[in-house]
């Protein structure tokens, strides 16, 4: 029995041309496969190229070498099967929360009268039913992330790319959001590529945790399977013995990279 591969990065290399003509290789030979229905978390030190990899999977960035396959088809242009939750604020500031969510459907030609009630349902399911009329600047950081989540999910993408979606949130809210995400994901098990800098969060949420080395030319240096039973509760799973063992094991690898990544970025800053 083989499940189809939703996202396949094969020996993907990403390089940026810097202003002064030099070329900065952010990611070297990344090899990563996400099966259909699989939840994969990417963890790595800051600046290692996590967002870059997601951009490649989204089709927003062309790799310098290697290939990107989406459901076994080579990716050309944008990845139409993917919904992307950006690291930075990406809501349309001139639309209300409701319109921001509804736009996902309206683009596809769904009549507004039909899109609005469904958008309202999605807002309710991310816990923002009462905030439909607010503009993004009237929402808190966490509320904006939830609207963005609804905006992506209403289109029912087959692949979900999430870049530190809970990044700016406090620890408690992160856990609430994590449980919300798992609940929504459990309903129809999309393929998820989830970037985070929080190892505990990665283990608690994912089926697999992938570790990237510090940049430049960062690589994928580890790939662990998380076999904690589902459905999980983020609060409780952290008390599990297996969770702790896995955490210790992964952290021993990640720790060195984090120190390296920090040292390299300070050196790079000094060199400039």
């Amino acid at each position: 029995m083989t499940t189809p591969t939703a996202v396949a990065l094969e020996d993907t290399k990403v390089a940026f041309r810097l202003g002064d003509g030099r070329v900065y290789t952010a990611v070297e030979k990344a090899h990563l496969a996400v099966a259909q229905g699989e939840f994969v978390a990417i963890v790595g030190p800051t600046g290692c190229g996590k967002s870059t990899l997601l951009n490649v999977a989204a089709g927003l960035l062309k790799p310098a070498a290697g290939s990107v396959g989406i459901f076994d088809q080579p990716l050309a242009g944008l990845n139409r099967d993917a919904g992307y939750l950006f690291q930075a604020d990406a809501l349309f500031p001139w639309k209300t929360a409701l319109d921001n969510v509804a736009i996902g459907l309206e683009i596809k030609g769904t009549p507004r009268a039909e899109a609005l009630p469904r958008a309202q349902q999605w807002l309710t399911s991310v816990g923002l039913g009462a905030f439909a009329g607010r503009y993004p600047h009237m929402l808190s950081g966490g509320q904006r992330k939830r609207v963005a989540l609804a905006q992506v999910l209403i289109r029912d993408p087959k692949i979900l790319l999430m870049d530190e979606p809970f990044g700016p949130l406090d620890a408690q809210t992160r856990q609430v959001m994590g449980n919300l995400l798992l609940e929504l994901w459990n309903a129809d098990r999309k393929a998820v590529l989830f970037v985070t800098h929080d190892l505990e969060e990665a283990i608690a949420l994912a089926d697999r945790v992938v570790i990237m080395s510090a940049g430049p030319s960062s690589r994928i240096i580890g790939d662990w399977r998380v076999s904690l039973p589902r459905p999980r509760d983020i609060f409780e799973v952290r008390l599990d013995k297996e969770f702790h063992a896995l955490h210790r094991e992964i952290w021993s690898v990640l720790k060195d990279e984090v120190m390296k990544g920090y040292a390299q970025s300070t050196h790079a800053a000094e060199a400039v």
Partner: protein
Amino acid sequence: MSRPTLLALQILVAVICIVLWQVLSTVPVFGKILLPPFFFSNPFDVFSQIVKWFSSGVIWKHLGITLTESILAFVIGSAGGVLVGFWFARQPLVAAVFDPYVKMVNALPRVVLAPIFALWLGLGIWSKVALGVTLVFFIVFFNVYQGVKEVSRTVLDNGRMLGMSERQLMQHVYWPSALSWMFSSLHTSVGFAVVGAVVGEYLGSAAGLGYLIQQAEGVFDVAGVFAGMFVLSAFVILIDYGVTLVERRLLVWRPTASDGRG
């Protein structure tokens, strides 16, 4: 400070100024009148002039003309600014080619164009509209250009990932962004539409507020000049208030400084 106190103080300033003006232009100080009526008139005369204009109704025609010219200048200038701004922002090559010429024309003091427009378009309203257009156009153009260029990269990528076509990006991303920049300069561009109209009238016309002031000046009727200036100020304040109302309607989604958050 509470609103009534503020209002009271604001009115107080006006009253003091007017009283000072009235006293200094009628009562001698040390045997000398400090504000000779020939140059400074006095509030009473100015006020009666304004009353006369309104009671006889002559002023309405002039106000109407100036208003028409301002509106036309604003509408035509904005439409042109939006179109060209969009075009330049979406076609960097065009923008690069025209850049020095745009800068050159914009650097020109528009007043020097007034005689040319009068020559080309006659002394009717269109030469004034043209002057206003040259002022409004550049403000709107620069803002729309900026607005389209400065759309957040992430918001744009988000639109793309949500499946927007180029046309939908235009409608849902570029257009609102450009409009918000344009509206943020609405006060300035409306103000300049009025300036264009009045200056044009002043330099040669047969009607309008600028004409009224110029006529009074021509016969050394200082009361008439001041009266014209006051009517003009009131006119501009009213228009500005209207703009504020429109702006509040259209930019509800914008954070304001008073929100206390970035």
